[in-house]
Structures are given as C-alpha cells and as structure tokens.
C-alpha cells in the first residue's frame, strides 16, 4: 500500500524483475547425449506401437507397416521425387513467409504505434482472423485456379495473423523505462522507433514468425491437396488415389521432417538475432 502512488504513476518506477532462468533454459543445460537418448527411446516406443497396430489391423492400405513405409521412403528419396516435391513446397513456403513479413510487420508497427491506425484496421483483422485459411481454398480455386499462386496465397493469409498480432504486442510491450531513458537523452521519435521499439519488439516478432511458420506449413498441405499439381500435399493426394499407402505415409513423414527442420532453423535464427532475450520468457 505504501508504494501505491508510485505504482499508479504512468512511468514504471518499481525495479524490474531480473530475468529468471526458465524451464527451457534449465533443459538446455541437460546433457545433449542423454536428451538424445530420451528422444530415441520415445521414437522406439512409437514405432513399436505402430508395428503392433499394423500387425493387428493387417490392412496395408489403412496402416502399412513401418518397414514398408521405410522402403517407400528410400525409393522416393533415391529417385529424387521426394526432394523435388519438398523443394517445391518449401519454395512456396519461403515466398509466403517473405510476403507475410513484408506486409504484416510494417502494418503491425503502424498499428502498434498509432492508436488511430489501429482503430481503422483492427476491426477488419478481428473479423478475418477467425476464418481459417482453408476456408478460402474454394474461392481461391476460382480466382487463381490450380497452380503455384493458390498455396502461396493461402499460406500468406495464414502467416499474416500471428505475425501481425505479435508485432503489435511487441511494439506495445516496449519497455516504458527504455523509452523514457531515450527521451531523456534527446533522442528524436524516429530514432526511438528504430533503436528502441524495433529491437525491443524483435523477440516477440520472432515468436510470431515461428507461429506463422507453423500455421502456414499446416495450411500448405491442405492447399496443395486440393489446389496444386505439385508439392508434398499434392504427392499425398496422388498416392492416395493410386492406393499406395506406404508412399502416402512416407510423404507424411517428409512433411514432419521439413517442418521440424524449419522450426529448428528458426530457433537458431532467433538465438542469433536476439541473444539478449535468452533466459527470458521469450526465448
């Protein structure tokens, strides 16, 4: 109660809480070899259950055995077909993420910095946001037809929202003490945005980027399943029609692998761009 007056003041005056090591930070200190073994073990259990289920159902169409999937995976990998499809999908993903960053991040800055811009744009965002990207596929088929544009459009749409919302949150969440400090040094507004708000929002934007990627990667499969003559999603649909379940499963594994690798790469990017944010809740 004694500090209530100061707490009510628009400038935060209470000492900031120092970064406390999070669970993630503690796990990071876990010996790598040991955690590798744990991962391996959980994979082994998963494959054992799969095998048992495949033996039980005894229907290669519904659930092929791990071994047949592995064989399919090998042949698809060797003749380069899988790589082609993966590259096609990945290129679309990269283009979509690029467009989403160029559109959503500046828009997020505008909305985060200007109350007025936010009042104009936010209602539209709130109406569009709950509509799944997949819901646009039929309409997009009419507009773009089957091809590259449709999956790129769907993914860009999906990726924009988490990026936009995280950018806004990051901009608004800029530490007010740092803004105050910059102002007392006579730093002009434009430079405050460039040198305080931008780096301050970066960790939150990076989180948005990872969420955007995860959403986009899920959406690409649906988009390619229906609206594309190439890519990982198309391949799944193709082999489904040919009733070649092992290859369907092989592609599902490829989707998981590409998604996982991209997230690992994004985490590495996050660590490189925002090394100071490690050990905070955003890292």
């Amino acid at each position: 109660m004694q500090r209530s007056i100061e707490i009510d003041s628009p400038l935060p005056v209470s000492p900031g809480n120092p970064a406390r090591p999070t669970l993630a930070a503690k796990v990071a200190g876990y010996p790598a070899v040991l955690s590798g073994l744990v991962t391996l073990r959980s994979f082994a259990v998963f494959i054992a259950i799969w095998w048992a289920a495949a033996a039980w159902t005894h229907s290669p169409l519904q659930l092929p055995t791990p071994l047949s999937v592995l064989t399919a995976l090998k042949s698809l990998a060797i003749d380069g077909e899988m790589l082609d499809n993966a590259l096609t999908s990945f290129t679309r993903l990269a283009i979509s993420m690029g467009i989403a960053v160029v559109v959503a991040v500046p828009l997020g800055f505008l909305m985060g910095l200007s109350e007025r811009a936010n009042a104009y744009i936010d209602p539209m965002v709130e109406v569009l946001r709950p509509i799944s990207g997949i819901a646009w596929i039929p309409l997009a088929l009419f507009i773009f037809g089957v091809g590259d544009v449709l999956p790129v459009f769907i993914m860009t749409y999906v990726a924009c929202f988490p990026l936009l919302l995280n950018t806004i949150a990051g901009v608004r969440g800029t530490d007010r003490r740092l803004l105050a400090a910059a102002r007392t040094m006579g730093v002009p507004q434009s430079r405050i945005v460039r040198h305080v708000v931008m780096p301050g929002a970066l960790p939150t934007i990076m989180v948005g980027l990872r969420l955007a990627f995860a959403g986009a990667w899920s959406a690409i499969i649906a988009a390619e399943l229906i609206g594309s003559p190439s890519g990982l999603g198309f391949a799944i649909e193709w082999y489904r029609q040919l009733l070649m379940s092992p290859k369907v499963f092989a592609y599902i594994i490829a989707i998981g692998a590409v998604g996982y690798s991209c997230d690992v790469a994004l985490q590495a990017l996050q660590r490189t761009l925002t090394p100071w944010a490690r050990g905070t809740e955003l890292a």
Partner: protein
Amino acid sequence: MSDTMTRPKLRLDHVTKEFAAPRTGLRTVAVSDVSLEIQAGDFVCIVGPSGCGKTTVMNMIAGLDKPSSGTIEIDGAPITGPGADRGVMFQDYALFPWLTVRDNIGFGLRNGTPGRGMAANDVEERISKHIELVRLGGAETKYPHQISGGMRQRVALARLLANGPDVLLMDEPLGALDAQTRLILQAELLRIWGETAPREERKTAVFITHDIAEAVFLSDSVVVMSSHPGRIRAVLPIDLPRPRDEHVRAHPRFAQLSEEIWELIRDEAYRAIA
C-alpha cells in the same frame, strides 16, 4: 551574468501532481504543493519513506511527467518535456538489453542531442573516456545480462555522464548494491560530480535515496519528504566540509545531522512497517 548568479538552476513552484487510477478514476495526490529551489552546482538529496513521491518529483524535473498544477523551471525557463540537459539515472538503470556496454554508454551520443555536431571520432573517444572513468575497460563488448549489478550501475552512470548533462537526476542509483560497493561508489560519485573542482564547474545533482547516511555524506542540502500526500517536510543544509572522504562519517556533525533527519521521518517509517 549577475542574473545567473542569483537565479536558481532548478525551481519548483507550488508543484502538485495527481494521478488518476486507470479504471476507477480514483485520484491520488502523489505530490502536494512542493516548492524548492536548487542552485547550480548543488548536490541535493531527497529522502523520505516509500510512496512520498520522490520519484514523481524527479520524473517531473526530467520532463517525463507534467505537474497537475504549479511550475518547474530550469534556468528560468519552464520545463515542457524531457531534454538532454537533464540526464536521468533510473532506479533499475534502464539499460538497453540488446546493446553492449559500449553501445549503451554511447546511445545518447550517437542518437540523441548530446552528440549533435560532434565528429564520429570525438564521439567514440568520449565513450572510451567514460568507460575508463567508471573502470569498465574489458567489459565493453559484454551485454547487460552478462555483467554484475554493480557493473550495470556503473554503465548507467557512465551513460549519464557521457551525455554531459547540466543536471544529474539520480533515482536511488546505488540501491541495488551491497554495502561496501555502495560506500566506494558514493565517494566515486562525488569525485565525478566535481567535488574537488571549483563550484562553478560542478554539475547540479538531484539524488534520491532512502539511506540517510548516504544523503548526509553526499549532499549540500537534504530535502526531507513525507508521504500521503508527498510534501516537503524540511530542507536541511549539510555544512560538512568538502571534499569529503570516509572520515567524514566519524565527524560528530555527521551523526548529528543523520539524527535530525531520522527524527523527521521516524514516525512515518515506523507507521509504514506497523
């Protein structure tokens, strides 16, 4: 010239600050009818219990907050907003976590008014000089989260001084330090402020603390505030000789002054913990 001799560096005239709580609209008077004159070259400490509005007073002098009524002047001109003529050292240092020690110290010089018109070489030289001043050589490329609390505090001090403000505003800058480091840095602070220099060359310093001994050791005068609402209880001139060193603490006058200040705030201090 005679004008500047008589005119105070900072003048607070019947300053009142109210805050409205965001949801309830309930108004709290943080600072009530504070009038104070601070002469150029003075080292003034503000002491008082938590919630007495010390920080609010400092934020208003810094231009980060506006008084609800009353005026604050610097060199006779009203304060309308923040400016690099009044440097602030924040309670928790407010260092930029994404900048190295060197870039933090150089932030104002590179981006703000203090470095305007300076050649890039001069800016870098000035940064290096201040890194040496607070003895942070060797830690220049470290980030704030990689250094100790005492080092962060020195980074903040170096940043404040590198900007070369006329007025130093410091909000419990030594609060987070252990007792020994604190004593050493108090003496250091006086040296940097210009205790040994002639009066005209000293900066004007406003220093917030809740440590009475610290206030007596540092100040030319101590402003004692009381809380609910925050107002000035008394202004005590500290007539201890300068330059001051450790021995001044053993001076009978030191104990006497500390006692006087304690008498002024003890009732409230006891009430606060009751």
